[in-house]
């Protein structure tokens, strides 16, 4: 735990006047909202990934736009960078600080401010938990469509920062399609509104530029989200296959038949066994691969779609089970959405990738992933959004074993290379963070990266918002090696 060593070296103590920046933050927000002790800083130094960068400076818990403004202005006056943090459930180290920035936690900005059911819009603070929002809306028959696996904990602010997806984004689109307007605090402390509720806001789509900005463009303090009506009918089918090829071919055939299922997910055998141990949903442990297919809409249409999916599945030799009721459906989804955590039943650590490949190359890429991990003597479990080709190979390992982390990192690199080779992309929905920053040149040319850096500078000319993430040297406005100097690299 390199972070702890660094905190100790710097004599991290409770909030005091020793650090003028901390004193100013305390004066502006109150001592209760500024935590500068070792415990708070240690825990704000990581997210849900295995990546460590620098160490968190003071951790602030504002509860209003004005307080976020104060945090940013004070940090700026003391030449300290700022990192925004939601639930800390991210998987790329995007919220893990580099250097020693002021951390702005949005967890107390958790109010649903306004729901306009007629126009299907809600204004929320960034710390509202994704599933809390949908639960709150459910009496109105509405929900917020993006549903990442971390949905019970991840925040709307985090969804905006990562342009998050989820199983049900296959038909409905990812977060960007569900965000209408964002109030943002910029690095100079100004508050601006990006986008708007009008059907066709005028000017450039700065809202679109901000979504997916990973906290590098500013801090969202209010978000207008689009609300989606709950479907009148839902049918969830579990298709099991004796080989991965047939499962992948079924995915292709379903899409080719013109169906757009609400969700189309695949798990391989190792993954099925892990989740079945946790959720006991009756997933078939002996299947080489399973597909979880959900169709929704008006009752008649759903019946027809489900019948078509069944027909295609049977044509590819699938065993088929249809969820009999909502309880069975929830249980199947609980298994799918708990896959990452359930891996710990096999090994204490995991490293998860997020590349997207063309659907037609799924089988080939899976085979090559199996080869790569075999060669390194590692264990891989595959769970992914098959409908849009978004892979999530999970390498399960034990970092306590000598040289293991190095091996896992190397296998990860090879998986990324294979995905790029077949025309894929680096990230489907988890973002880049520090994890994939140095892989960016595999996908983007120098010109591309320079343009991305200029966009960053347009929002944040002083390079103080979450510096050192996403854009690799020399395209980053930050001196990444300086920011990371104390820790070597993110693997600590």
């Amino acid at each position, binding site marked *: 735990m390199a972070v702890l060593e660094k905190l100790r070296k710097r004599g991290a103590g409770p909030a005091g006047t020793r650090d003028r920046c901390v004193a100013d933050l305390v004066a502006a927000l109150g001592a209760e909202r500024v935590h500068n002790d070792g415990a708070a800083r240690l825990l704000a130094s990581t997210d849900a990934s295995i990546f460590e960068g620098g160490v968190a400076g003071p951790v602030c818990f504002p509860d209003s736009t004005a307080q976020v403004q104060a945090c940013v202005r004070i940090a700026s006056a003391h030449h300290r960078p700022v990192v925004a943090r939601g639930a800390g459930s991210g998987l790329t180290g995007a919220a893990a600080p580099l250097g020693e920035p002021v951390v702005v936690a949005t967890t107390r900005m958790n109010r649903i401010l306004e729901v306009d059911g007629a126009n299907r819009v809600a204004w929320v603070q960034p710390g509202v938990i994704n599933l809390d929002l949908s639960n709150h809306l459910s009496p109105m028959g509405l929900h917020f469509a993006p549903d990442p696996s971390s949905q019970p*904990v991840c925040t709307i602010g985090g969804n905006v920062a990562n342009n998050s997806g989820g199983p049900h984004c296959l038909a409905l689109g990812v977060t960007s399609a569900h965000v209408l307007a964002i109030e943002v605090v910029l690095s100079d402390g100004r508050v601006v509104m990006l986008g708007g509720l009008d059907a066709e806001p005028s000017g450039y789509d700065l809202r679109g530029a901000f979504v997916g900005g990973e906290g590098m463009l500013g801090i969202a303090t209010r978000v207008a989200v689009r609300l989606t009506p709950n479907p009148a009918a839902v049918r969830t089918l579990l298709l099991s296959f004796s080989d991965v090829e047939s499962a992948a071919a079924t995915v292709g055939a379903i899409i080719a038949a013109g169906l757009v299922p609400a969700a189309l997910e695949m798990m391989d055998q190792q993954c099925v066994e892990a989740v079945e141990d946790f959720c006991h949903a009756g997933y078939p442990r002996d299947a080489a691969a399973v597909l979880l297919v959900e169709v929704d809409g008006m009752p008649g249409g759903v019946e027809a779609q489900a019948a078509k999916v069944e027909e295609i599945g049977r044509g590819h030799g699938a065993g088929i089970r249809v969820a009999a009721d909502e309880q069975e459906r929830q249980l199947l989804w609980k298994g799918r959405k708990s896959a990452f955590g359930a891996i710990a039943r096999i090994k204490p650590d995991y490293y998860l990738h997020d590349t997207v490949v063309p659907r037609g190359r799924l089988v080939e890429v899976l085979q090559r992933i199996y080869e790569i991990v075999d060669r390194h003597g590692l264990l891989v479990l595959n769970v992914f959004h098959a409908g849009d080709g978004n892979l999530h190979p999970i390498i399960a390992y034990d970092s306590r074993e000598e040289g293991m982390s190095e091996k896992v990192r190397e296998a990860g690199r090879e998986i990324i290379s294979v995905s790029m080779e077949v025309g894929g992309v680096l990230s489907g929905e988890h973002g880049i963070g520090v994890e994939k920053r140095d892989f960016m040149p595999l996908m983007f040319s120098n010109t591309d990266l320079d343009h991305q850096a200029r966009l960053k500078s347009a929002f944040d000319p002083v390079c103080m918002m979450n510096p050192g993430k996403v854009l690799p040297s020399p395209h980053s406005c930050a001196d990444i090696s300086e920011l990371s100097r104390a820790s070597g690299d993110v693997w600590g």
Partner: protein
Amino acid sequence: MDLGLDRDELDKCVQCALCLPHCPTFRVTGEDARSPRGRIGLMRAVQYHDAPLSDQVVESFDTCVQCRGCEPACPSGVRFGRLIEQTRETLVGAGHRPPAKLRFALAALDHHRALLAGSTALAVAQRAHLVPSGLGLPESLPLRRPTLEPSGGDVHLFTGCVMDAWQRDVHLAAKQVLEAMGVGVAPTGAAAPCCGALHQHAGMADKFRGMAAATVAAFDDDQPILVDSAGCGAAMKEYGNLLGTPAAAAFSARVFDIDEWIALRVDDLPHATPLEISVAVQDPCHLRHVQKVHESVRTVLRPFVRELVELDDDGLCCGAGGAFSIVQPELAGLIRDRKTESIVRADADLVASANPGCSLHLQQAGHEVAHPIQLVARALSGVGT
């Protein structure tokens, strides 16, 4: 510092954060140091990396309600209850003792007669306005308690400590319902004065083991032991693991929550006209997350009331947490505020809670609360609402 934590258990957590929304203290503070994941991070820092036991680190551990709501939410199967209990035990051993008022109160619990006498004295003093508020006591302690005459030896009814002093009417209702089913009941009274659950939560592990052994020794037959306090039942079901003896394992195997036991024999209950009330079911954490028999409350209660209403907070803790509401009143109050909002949304006539600590805590916020077994008894007696 070695916290004495099992390395494999501690390493199981993969920091996925799925526990956070199920943690009451995280919900009301938004702080990582008030979450299970954060507490595990600090346990690792202390045990593996010799992080200092700063005030904030100790406070992070001390503020855990021990509701165990994180355990069912954890896909990795981390047994967080064990981690936090062991951590508390080590800290107590290292001199981080629970607050004096808690130690004083806990010391009285296994002295049954003195406890009852003391409670009555407090009840008198309360009526003379001699008891300061803010001690976490119920507003109106009972001056008199009904007597619990044994009616047979089919089952034991564990009566416990504080509950016997303050809520003996629940025991009486339990006894009446069991008798209406044709079951002879032997209340335990002074023979088994206290299960030790509160001591366990406070990190007083040696004391807990002693009380567990004494409780096991107090029952020398094979009859079922029924418990109408979810917290006590959870602790007594743990004796087998805790003491590791065949006697303790056999003991734990015959401990049942009263609702759990009756739900298995629901056909033996006489028919009665349902009470004309709607009831919101509050699941005590140690019934839902630890014993996992909370559905039986519904099975037992449904035929005897007009309507059961579910709370919409996904079983989040109410903040009572045994003695938690006394040692952490501010956090306990914030957590209860969330529960109150959910109860208000449920819009029922009263709240049913199968744990004495939860009902006292909720009553102090102005909610009308009854043990489910009291509602069944009321319906069976034909007295109406």
